[in-house]
């Protein structure tokens, strides 16, 4: 009898912790890190991490329209892809546009970071100043310092927003550049 009672309070406590975590993730505008949650709730980090994993599974089991995703080193509620057309229409706003050139520059900086404009120009064979300023304006890249060479050019790196937008947990989740040696061949074979 006593044992069962203990079990119930333990379960209740776990449920209580999970609810708190869920609430924090729900109201947050940017991905929340498990450490942040643990510090705020004054709870054990492992316990918090386990609870988040359980929450992810629970939401998955619900088979609803929402999921919890691990991005940019934190956790975030997001809608499932099947709703994308409907929601785009509902939001009804002009999208931010990223040109092919912009994406190219972003890709090079993501791989080479921290990188200078000259390093990007060298790979592309063309001046990238326009694309770089658009990417900075959109907060996908930022200046992280200056290179210790004559002229002290700015060094650029990707931002947390880049990770968030491209659904990456860390920059290491990007594939290796060597994998793209025979990209066209791979595409053809697929």
């Amino acid at each position, binding site marked *: 009898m006593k044992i069962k009672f203990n079990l119930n309070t333990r379960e209740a406590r776990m449920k209580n912790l999970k609810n708190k975590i869920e609430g924090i993730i729900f109201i947050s505008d940017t991905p929340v890190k498990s450490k942040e949650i643990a510090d705020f709730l004054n709870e054990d980090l492992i316990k918090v991490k386990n609870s988040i994993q359980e929450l992810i599974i629970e939401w998955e089991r619900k088979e609803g329209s929402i999921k919890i995703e691990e991005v940019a080193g934190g956790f975030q509620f997001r809608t499932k892809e099947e709703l994308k057309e409907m929601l785009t229409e509902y939001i009804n706003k002009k*999208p*931010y546009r*990223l040109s092919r050139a912009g994406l190219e520059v972003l890709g090079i900086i993501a791989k080479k970071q921290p990188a200078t404009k000259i390093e990007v120009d060298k790979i592309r064979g063309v001046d990238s100043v326009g694309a770089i300023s658009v990417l900075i304006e959109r907060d996908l890249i930022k200046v992280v310092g200056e290179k210790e060479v004559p002229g002290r050019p700015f060094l650029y790196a990707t931002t947390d927003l880049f990770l968030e937008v491209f659904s990456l947990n860390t920059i290491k989740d990007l594939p290796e550049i060597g994998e793209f040696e025979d*990209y066209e061949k791979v595409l053809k074979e697929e």
Partner: protein
Amino acid sequence: MKDLNSSNSNFEKVKLDIFEGPLDLLLNLIKENNLDIYELSLTQITEQYLEYVELLKEFNFDDIGDYLVIAAELARLKSRSLLPDNEDESMIDEPEIDLVEMLKEYKKYRAFSENLRERVLLGRDTFKRPTDLSLRSNTLWEVQKTDIWKLVTSVKKVLQLENYKEIPDIEIEEDSIDQDQRRISIINNFKDRKILKFNEIFNIKDGRESVIVSFIVILDMIKEGNVLVVEDEDQIQFEYKGS
């Protein structure tokens, strides 16, 4: 890689980041000609490349200097390939850039960025709960796929048509075409139909200058997202997205 700008054009300088640059153009030409990236392939497409550069000069394209650097290297490769084997190669200047290596390296990054586009994008494929739903503050993203070179190729063909026509050499100076004016007339054409065919915007009968101005206006509209290039059975069409 900056400005050796030399153009006699009267138009405003075109500064557009939708062009991917000279290496992208070269890769496209190599692919079109079913070649692989070798020095020999490069010498085969030199003339085609130069045709594009001539056209870009006419648009008063801002980054033309970067295209000329590559053109010089292509010319060097070509002249070397024309030398008989026993000729002393030290007669030719040493290469300043290894174009084949550059192309291979660039191609990897181009493929990588295409791969980036296919990821699940927040604001395109998935959405988060915005801070203030009443404002629908979600940010939408759109990643453009348009291959600008296809458009340039079509414009190039139209302009070449003109060369075959015998036009008496009468230039009417004051009747130059204004970009803003051309823009208004293009938007007007779109008012009736959302989709216009390529030759409804680009017609050599309107004159060379008109075609070039139209091209600059259309590029601007693509950049703003007001016009979308759609390909229908190899035909380029334009869809109006503006309001």
